[in-house]
């Protein structure tokens, strides 16, 4: 089975994001860039299939600036077989990213395309469903598990109270929410091998994509409002007293009880 995992490079989730001087973008100097967390789960799900059946091929693709190669190399070091970068400097509308990815999918002909359910920078969750739409393929969202079953793939979708298990006949798109195991760290031999691998580049024109989708315009960005200093209570052996004070305050001051 052939997998293609689409990934995006985003500010690392441990980074404290700051608003830039223009007030409508984030300050990127000195930032650490990483694979978006949900895309890492997608890589892990695909690599687990490869662990189970070594004939499985796991490719990765990203649309983004030249620095995105670092994220692709990280994916190779984790154990992916090959990587492709679609070079696009600057911000591209989600639907245009989906079109570019669809063109790559048509060339590579994977059985299963996996995307993280959303990128942890814009948090839109548009590209995955839009890619499925551009391809005319079905998709399953909130994917947490993937099990081959004959000519089908069982796709586990997390919903309230459990999982819906869908039987997909490839090709299909999965939007990954989580993997059961944490995404693996690259091994040292993996890192050495990844260093030597070529990462071919494509551009939008060669894929026949002319950006033209409707664009969102960010007018302003701000950090969430700082919360005021709260009241701190020490138990000092009087749990009952403190509990009653807080319950009373929630009822009378905050009016949420």
């Amino acid at each position, binding site marked *: 089975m052939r997998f293609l995992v689409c990934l995006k490079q985003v*500010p690392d989730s441990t980074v*404290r994001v700051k*608003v830039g001087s223009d007030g409508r973008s*984030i300050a990127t100097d000195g930032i650490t860039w990483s694979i978006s*967390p949900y895309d890492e*789960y997608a890589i892990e799900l695909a690599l687990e299939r490869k662990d189970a059946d070594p004939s499985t091929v796991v490719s990765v693709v990203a649309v983004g600036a030249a620095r995105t190669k670092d994220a692709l190399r990280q994916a190779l070091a984790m154990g992916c077989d090959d990587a492709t970068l679609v070079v696009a400097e600057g911000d591209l509308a*989600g*639907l245009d990213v989906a079109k570019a990815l669809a063109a790559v999918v048509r060339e590579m002909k994977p059985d299963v395309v996996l995307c993280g359910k959303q990128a*942890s920078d814009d*948090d*839109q*969750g548009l590209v*995955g*469903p*839009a890619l*499925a*739409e551009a391809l005319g*393929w*079905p*998709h*399953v969202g909130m994917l947490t598990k993937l099990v081959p079953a004959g000519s089908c793939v069982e796709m*586990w979708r*997390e919903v*309230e*109270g*459990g*999982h*819906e*298990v*869908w039987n*997909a*006949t490839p090709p299909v798109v999965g*939007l990954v*929410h*989580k993997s059961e195991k944490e995404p693996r760290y690259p091994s040292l031999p993996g890192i050495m091998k990844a260093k030597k691998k070529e990462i071919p580049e494509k551009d939008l024109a060669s894929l026949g994509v002319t950006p033209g*989708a*409707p664009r*969102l*315009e*960010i*007018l302003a*960005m701000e*950090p*969430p409002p700082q*919360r*005021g200093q*709260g009241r*701190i*209570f*020490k*138990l000092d052996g009087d*749990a009952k007293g*403190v*509990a009653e004070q*807080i*319950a*009373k305050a*929630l009822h009378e001051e*905050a009016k*949420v009880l």
Partner: protein
Amino acid sequence: MKILVVAERKDGELRRVSSEIAAKAQGFGDVEVVAVKGDRYLPMAWSAAVAEKARGADLVLVGATLGGRDLGARAAAKLGWAYAADCTDVTPADGAVEVRRPMYAGKIRAVVKVPLPAVVSVRAGAWTLPASAPAPGVNEIAAAASDERLRYGRFEATASGGSRVSLAEARAVVSAGRGLKGPENWKLVEELADALGAATGASRAVTDAGWRPNEEQVGQTGKTVTPDLYVALGISGAIQHLAGMTSSKVIVAVNKDPDADIFKVADYGVVGDLFEFVPAFTEAVKKVKGSG
């Protein structure tokens, strides 16, 4: 402006978020509220039905639920329209709407101009449902049957899953972290949640350890919640967790460590042993609510 509200049902009842959106949208222009017939969400068929119905409208509004976000994104792609996810406010503005939405896992709030026509998903609780709001009239629309390439198999219930209010829509949430020491102590969390009428949540440490199902994880790579009351028990307050709950109206935190980051966002912080405090707090809540 012509607005199409795509409502969602759960167990036959309109979801609260759908009612919130239908009520607020009345102020934007001509509103039609529709719901897709059928119990189980089918991405291709449902988004096709919504896209078909949406032609001629200026704005499609859906709830930013798991299904709603998925449906909205694919319908927007089918229509070639602009799309904005998980918005906390929408304001009409001359050929566009201005939306407020979190980005960077809640570490940033953005004001975004979305050109019309557009599909926008709106977060539960973003708009307060007026007590006087009449139940919206809902027109049913039909979707094609399931695609042969994607067939529904079965439901696998989470062992602990269940009857509680949905985390994303709950007005109160009780969450616990590693400070709870083990899954055998979860009943403390549930007793408090029952007293408050709250949903239960967990830190990533707790879901990763397998004490609780993934769907209860609050924070980055989990759920973002904005209840009126959030109670954090034994949660240190990693930046990823804070991103998922810091917009709650009132936060109560209990932790042994006086330097825990969770106290920086707490309105009421309790420094001490949660095993002493929580049972007492559960009793105190029952007393105040007059149910004990």
